[in-house]
């Protein structure tokens, strides 16, 4: 029998840790409520005001991204889950016990990442597909609806879950760098919420070139069925977001490897 520590055993350990704290369960619950519940609320509001919507807006209406609008809110629940995966260990000092058991730090980061990505992918995809179906059934009969028979619709829904999953990785990586829950979540909120507000102050002619690279705007592009001209395509937006995540993760892992625990 192999009694050595390995990535597999670290993943198993991290999975136990991840599912045995209430913050994870609460975070996932809140993510579901916001993704599906807010999506349904906005779908219902759209339906009841549809007659007052201008014809121009009716033509460009996107039933897919509208049903997925809840992710704009649930991304914060995701940010909390991702950051707490590491910052809660610093808050209690548990990180030292953990590193005593798993001193290979990159292996520990990898184990946490696998658990985070796998679990977030599953729950966010379930939530996004549910929000999609709930939204379409609310639209049905009054507002135009979309169906999964179109590949670009399927892509938009899957990318919505990917957007949330990648943001979880971003907030985890920020946590590796900052090592403090509140500060990490503050920075995360700044990036996805405050940055777009700040960019409103930028002159229009520049803004069009900058805004499309903001994480929240990438998320917009990823969940839209049709790419507006001048914007990044959905798959380019996904690629961009992955690059952001890899850069922050790389910095976090490097610091985690080098610093005293």
């Amino acid at each position, binding site marked *: 029998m192999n009694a050595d520590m390995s990535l597999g055993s670290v993943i198993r350990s991290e999975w136990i840790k991840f599912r*045995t704290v209430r913050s994870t369960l609460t975070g996932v619950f809140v993510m579901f409520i916001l993704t599906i519940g807010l999506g349904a609320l906005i779908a219902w509001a759209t339906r009841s005001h549809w007659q007052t919507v201008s014809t121009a807006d009716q033509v460009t209406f996107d039933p897919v991204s509208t049903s997925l609008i809840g992710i704009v809110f649930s991304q914060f629940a995701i940010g909390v889950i991702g950051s707490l995966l590491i910052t809660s260990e610093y808050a209690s*000092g*548990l990180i030292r016990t953990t590193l005593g058991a798993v001193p290979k730090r990159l292996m520990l980061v990898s184990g946490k990442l696998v658990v985070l990505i796998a679990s977030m992918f599953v729950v966010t995809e379930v939530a996004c597909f549910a929000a999609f179906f709930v939204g379409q059934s609310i639209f049905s009969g009054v507002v135009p609806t979309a169906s999964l028979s179109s590949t670009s619709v399927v892509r938009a829904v899957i990318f919505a879950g990917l957007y949330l999953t990648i943001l979880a990785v971003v907030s985890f990586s920020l946590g590796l760098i900052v090592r403090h829950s509140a500060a990490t979540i503050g920075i995360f909120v700044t990036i996805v919420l405050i940055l777009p507000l700040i960019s409103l102050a930028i002159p229009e002619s520049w803004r069009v070139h900058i805004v499309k690279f903001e994480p929240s705007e990438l998320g917009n592009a990823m969940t839209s069925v049709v790419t507006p001209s001048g914007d990044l395509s959905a798959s380019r937006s996904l690629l961009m977001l992955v690059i952001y995540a890899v850069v922050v993760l790389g910095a976090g892992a490097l610091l985690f490897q080098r610093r005293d625990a």
Partner: protein
Amino acid sequence: MIKIEHLTKRYGDTLAVDDLDFEVRPGVITGFLGPNGSGKSTTMRVILGLDHPTKGRATVKGQDYASLRAPLHEVGALLDAKAVHPGRTARNHLRALAASNRIPFARVDEVLGFTGIDSVANKKVGNFSLGMSQRLGIAGALLGDPEVLLFDEPVNGLDPEGIRWIRDFFRSLANEGRTVFVSSHLMSEMAVTADQIIVIGRGKLITQGSIDSLTATAKGSVFVRASDHEKLISVLKTHGGDVSEANDEALSVSDLTSDQIGQIAFDADVVLFELTPQRASLEDVFMELTADSVEYGSSGARNER
């Protein structure tokens, strides 16, 4: 076996550990003694690979901690009993630790039973008393049945019953041939717990050896009452004695034996009323050894220029 080789650890301006060099052997309890802020916890963190040395190194069984293939099977450590997620149950905490090193869950129940916390195994550790947290920490250290055990200030905050339990426990570990390394800032604690002592002050090794040899090398003193203290003091001083007033009517003499003092007094025509050798207590030894290091370090931190 733990080996510290020319270990130096600096945090910014603070020199926490200064060229420390020692070994910890198996089969005995080794006490790691020093005043608060002398670098004990830092040394332990370096041994566990948590902090990176500025210079030198620390090895366990000849290896860097980080290169151990299954650390919990080799080394068990309790640095801080409160270093657990308060919202997780004791059993889940131990299971997560066990899983990382492929230790079967049955072993979790064993160590819970051994440390006497099986009745609270499914309670959140945030509600644990310090004593219960200590036991949980010890349970974690024992999970992999390791040969080397490290405990940082394990008796802090324990009640007398807990202290006795932990002493007996260290003894049984050492008797099984394990390496037991325990830190404390209390000499009195080490005197009853440890076989070997390593004393540090301001990050430097001050002395090491068995408890008995430490007491033997300590400066003893002799309690003296005599007919003419003034005269006696001056002759003792000319013979190299270090004399101070023990109280209003007695002297305390060191650097001379009681035989020498008796002879000197006789030669000087001073009548001795009392001549009593005082064996230095371990606490005295410790105070004497670390006097320099606490003088400057009363605030805990020391800055090097």
